[in-house]
């Protein structure tokens, strides 16, 4: 019996320390008073919210509420007329997409932006584009250092393929995969950038229950294993409430709610926007 007690003491020493538990940190991304309009149409009006490091932050709202526009502003696709975005202490009036990507923000798209004719492997490889240092010619001719670099990147991509459990489709052209898997490849491509912040635009749109469960698990795993901060837009309220730490609610381009899932669920304005009001 004595031996057993000693053993468990030993066990405590060598077991993997669960202290690496995800901790929500400081504000990493701060959006201040953003307004965006297209001609006379006001897409976003005076929106402010922040995202903390390592958290899962959801943006929800009915159709046309301005969710994707918000993501596009953070992403540098749209330039807001007013307001500023602060990322890791640096404030920007506007940015271009490449700068944003170089700063460690990756995204997936609502309507998938993959190369349909290319294999899963190659698609995810494109996510490593920014990290490749060798020139076009060296890469084309696979000259010494370029080849070594490619092997290194390939190894990283293989980790992602393993992580997303798509080994069986490594060589399959993306266009031949079912929709749910294409979404996963899109996520893989974004992950290949080793982002600090991952923007997900409706990652579960058009999926069945099982695919949604898989996707939720992958999102939480990404957040958990890599510590990636996640900002996601999603329609499925069940999913949002389950996986996010804090939720922003938009309606007609205005922010009507912000807080933990429970707070948002009890917010009068949110209930009115989603369920309508009794007259």
């Amino acid at each position, binding site marked *: 019996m004595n031996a057993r007690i000693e053993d468990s003491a*030993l*066990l405590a020493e*060598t*077991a*993997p320390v669960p202290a690496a*538990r995800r901790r929500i940190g400081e504000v990493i991304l701060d959006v201040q008073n953003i307004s965006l309009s297209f001609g006379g149409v006001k897409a976003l009006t005076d929106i402010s919210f922040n995202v903390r490091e390592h958290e899962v932050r959801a943006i929800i709202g009915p159709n046309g509420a301005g969710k994707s526009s918000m993501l596009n502003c953070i992403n540098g696709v749209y330039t807001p007329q007013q307001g500023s975005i602060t990322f890791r202490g640096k404030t920007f009036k506007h940015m271009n997409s490449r700068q944003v990507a170089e700063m460690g923000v990756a995204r997936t798209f609502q309507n998938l932006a993959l190369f349909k004719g290319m294999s899963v492997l190659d698609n995810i490889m494109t996510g490593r584009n920014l990290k490749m240092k060798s020139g076009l010619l060296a890469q084309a001719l696979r000259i010494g250092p370029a080849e070594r670099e490619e092997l290194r990147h390939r190894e990283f991509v293989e*980790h992602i393929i393993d992580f997303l459990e798509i080994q069986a489709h490594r060589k399959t052209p993306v266009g031949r995969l079912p929709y749910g898997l294409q979404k996963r490849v899109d996520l893989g491509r974004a992950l290949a950038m080793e982002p600090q912040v991952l923007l997900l635009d409706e990652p579960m749109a058009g999926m069945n229950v099982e695919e949604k469960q898989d996707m939720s698990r992958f999102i939480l795993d990404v957040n*958990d*294993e890599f510590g990636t901060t996640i900002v996601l837009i999603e329609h499925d309220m069940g999913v949002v409430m389950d996986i996010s730490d804090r939720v922003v609610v938009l309606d007609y381009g205005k922010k009507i709610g912000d807080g933990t899932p429970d707070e948002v669920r009890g917010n009068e304005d949110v209930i009115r926007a989603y369920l309508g009001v009794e007259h």
Partner: protein
Amino acid sequence: MERQRSVKARAYIRAILNTQTHPTDTFPRLLAKHAAERPDAPAMREKDLGIWQTWRWQDCAREVREIACGLASLGFRPLDNLAIVGANRPRLYLAMAAAQSLRGVPVPLYQDAVAAEMVFMLDDAGIEFVIAEDQEQVDKLLECRESRPQLAHIIYDDPRGLRNYDQPGLLSFEALRQLGRQFDEQNPGYFDAAVQSVQPSDVGVILYTSGTTGRPKGVCQTHAGFIAAGRGGVETDRLGPGDNIMSYLPMAWVGDHLFSVAQWLVAGFTLNCPESAETVMNDMREIGPSYYFGPPRTFEGLLTAVSIRMEDAAAPKRWLYAKCMALAQRVGADILGGAPVSAKDRFLYKLGDLFIYGPLRNVLGMSRIRVAYTAGAAIGPDLFRFYRSIGVNLKQFYGQTETCAYVCLQQDGRVKLTSVGTAAPGMELKIADNGEVLVRGVSVLKEYYKRPEATAEVLDADGYFHTGDAGVLDSEGHLRIIDRAKDVGRMQGGAMFAPNYIENKLKFFPQIKEAVCFGNGRDEVCAAINIDYEAVGNWAERRGLPYGGYVDLAGKPEVLALIADCIAKVNADLAAEDGMADTQIARFLVLHKELDPDDDELTRTRKVRRGFIAEKYAVLVDALYGGKSEQFIETQVKFEDGRSGAVSATLKIVEARRFPAVRAAA
């Protein structure tokens, strides 16, 4: 159980064991021998991150030592049982060897079992230590631990997703090996002494029966028994270090233990573990195994896939394929079996090999196959002939968990399509008066774990194991299995009713996935059919027949007509067989849902549980015999995520075409 066996039986078994050339072999010693003799030869491979990683024999031996010492440092004692849950990963195989090295007993469990099923076995085997593959299994085991707190140590291989788990007793593989290295330093002689203490007569593994009949039972097999079974197969097929095998079937299944553990350690060939369950076909093409096992289902699936793709091919290709396959059907099996074939046919077959058979084998990943085996269920003669005719040396064997899956083997050159072969080396066969197959010899189980009364039921005083299968031995000693002995019933008219026999005939049609026949004690045979969604769906699409999902497709009049055709063919077959004419199928229906192990309708090895189905679908059975033309039914189903729902449909009952009995002309 020794006392149950007579002196005569014991003398017989001893005589056989003495004829073995290596009477002191145990699994740990075999491993040590390979590591010493061929340290750099590849022992195992696993595809990881897209690349085949190799474990050499010395790597295996070192890792087994670390794992074993790690387990010992946690308090694993000799004769303790170690549960192993997960897919085929090298480390799980090494964990088995580690338990055996400590004179412990590995207990592999089916990885797709739900927690409630698993807890029964954990309890039965008194498990304190588990080696689990990943988060999925750990979650299940933690659930089991709520009702069974003795489960003290859970060691996992893949750490993904387990970072935030802080339950006590949870340990990663790396940490275990680290503990092992420390323990080994502090107790340098411990491991070697433990390996030396293992006796061939010790229990080497406990495998659970699938539970077709009642609760699963733990079958205790000795090192000597399994090694003898492995050696018999290895010698029959001349397997050796150069051979490669894919290990992709559940580790809890006796066949995998025979091929991937016993034969592996006896012959010293290379195990290849696939990257994931979905990539098996691809991985197989890359490895090109020389030795392969697949259940009939797998071979059937491959053939279905090939047929579907051929139907989509261009006309000239279809023509060439049809021509070549016709030739192969005629002479291919004979060429493989070494029977005389004319020079012209040999030449044509060579041409066919160049254009069709060779490339086809390549696509199937079977280019280098010397020996392929199938077992577990009856295989259709057509299917069997197809593989043999394209040059794949497919053979059958027969055995069960209680006999290390080692009773009969088809020998090269003496393959009969309908039989499972002759008695394997070291085995002896006898048919009891009621038709039951009795066997004794090297591979018969030692006992059921903690179930002396169950052991006494299956092992008689002469050392014969009662297989529970009904079979016939022909004049050359080939065994033909007809059915489960207890399933064989009588019709009201007195004719013998062998439901599996009829069901298997039905299942040989690609359109039929499962079939259940009723008829014991009744005047007619009726059947419930499960269509094969993929094959019938494809057939419907080709015909421009629209359907909205499984239930709709299963109820289409066209589909019913298609199935009626299949049944008419089976009836014609039965009419031509002696004593089977009365068991022709009178009526049938097509079920609205697939029979599923999650709904307890099939066992985990996908055998139908006839009794359960007859009870669950009692309304349908009554309707079949009550002369109704259709019947409404609503069924509860369990989804994969554990929730349940209901499926309902009105099923049509169709009269089948029957034939007058054909008397064989004198």
